[in-house]
């Protein structure tokens, strides 16, 4: 069952055309890693696939299911506690109980930090609060922009396990990362070098 289909997508930044002719069809159960050098347009492509960018994006992108987009910016308010941040996250339209949110925060090793302002946590911990969102969303398609950055080894393993479980349950993930492929045969690569405009 296709979750997202992109046909002949071209991306421009200012007057310069970055990518053209990108074709992609994402079905449930797939993991796609978007590869490419810095500045080739990985994040721009992801924003276009998420639907945030329309100007300077040509070609057709059809999204068949609601998606979850995790950007560099964590969308977390420093003044609010992790619990508050996850309970009223702007993109999340699921009502989660206190117990479910605490469970998610425990999964990212943030037990005991539930009601402390996020501003007082470390950058790595703040990143984990953003990642805890993955456990509280019913979106089948995940678009993750550099999810493994600023994560320690245990965090990376947890995220890897999380992606495998999500994909196993019929979801799909598209992520950008410089780290070598982690999902072996499960993963397909989208190397933007083929579509870059020299």
């Amino acid at each position, binding site marked *: 069952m296709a979750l997202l289909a992109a046909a002949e997508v071209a991306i421009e930044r200012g007057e310069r055309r970055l990518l053209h002719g990108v074709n992609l069809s994402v079905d449930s159960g797939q993991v796609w890693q978007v590869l490419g050098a810095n500045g080739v347009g990985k994040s721009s492509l992801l924003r276009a696939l998420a639907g945030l960018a329309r100007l300077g994006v040509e070609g057709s992108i059809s999204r068949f299911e609601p998606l979850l*987009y995790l950007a560099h910016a964590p969308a977390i308010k*420093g003044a609010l506690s992790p619990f508050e941040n996850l309970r009223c996250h702007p993109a999340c339209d699921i009502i989660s109980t206190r117990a479910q949110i605490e469970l998610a925060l425990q999964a990212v090793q943030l037990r005991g930090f539930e009601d402390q302002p996020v501003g007082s946590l470390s950058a790595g911990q703040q990143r984990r609060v953003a990642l805890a969102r993955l456990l509280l969303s019913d979106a089948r398609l995940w678009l993750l922009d550099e999810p493994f950055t600023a994560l320690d080894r245990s965090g990376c393993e947890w995220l890897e396990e999380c992606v495998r*479980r999500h994909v196993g349950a019929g979801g799909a993930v598209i992520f950008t990362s410089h780290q070598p492929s982690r999902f072996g045969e499960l993963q397909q690569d989208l190397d933007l070098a083929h579509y870059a405009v020299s």
Partner: protein
Amino acid sequence: MLSADRPHLSLLAAFGRQFRRHGQALMASLAEVANPLLFFFMVVTLFPLGLGPDPTQLAAMAPGVLWVVALLASLMVSARMFASDFEDGSLEQMALAAHPLAVLALGEVVAHWLATGFLLALVSPLFALMLGLPSQGLGVLVVSLLLGTLCLTLIGAVGSALTVSIRRGGLLLSLLIIPLNVPVLIFGTAAVTEAVRGGDPSTWLALMGALAAGMLALVPLAVGAALRISLDS
């Protein structure tokens, strides 16, 4: 991935959630709330220094001065309205939410109004007394400022949404929205002046109410469109 039978947010609940989220973030930093009040307080004290202490002259100018300073205070506050959400990525997530961006943005704007304009209106009699505004004008001043600051905040929201992605967009923001604030200033000052003169300010307050109602209906659409454009630039 969760099973799909989890309860989903209604539109009103999403609005309330954004309202609470922005409100809590604002209330946490008291400076953000105290700024406009202090600004109002200090600027009002400038006028007697500039125009002389003569009470009759000050009282005659009080409605206009109070309203112009309220307009400037709301202008100063509007610049930061969507800035923090733009920087920390919340705006992107709001644009991807299932509910229309216009409604979520309205939740933020109303929270922002309550934390700034609403308080301004409640505190304004204190500054009015400083300028010697006759007592019969105080009640109408508060009512006109309540409606007026709502209009000023809504127009400020359009300006803030258009300039949020521009560095140093503050000055540009005032150029964009001051012309749009002129009717609010005229209606507000006229209402208070009429009340001070003993006349019936209800016509001006009714006009202000109509303006507020119209803006509450139309401005969120413009703010939603402007935010999407700012996210896209």
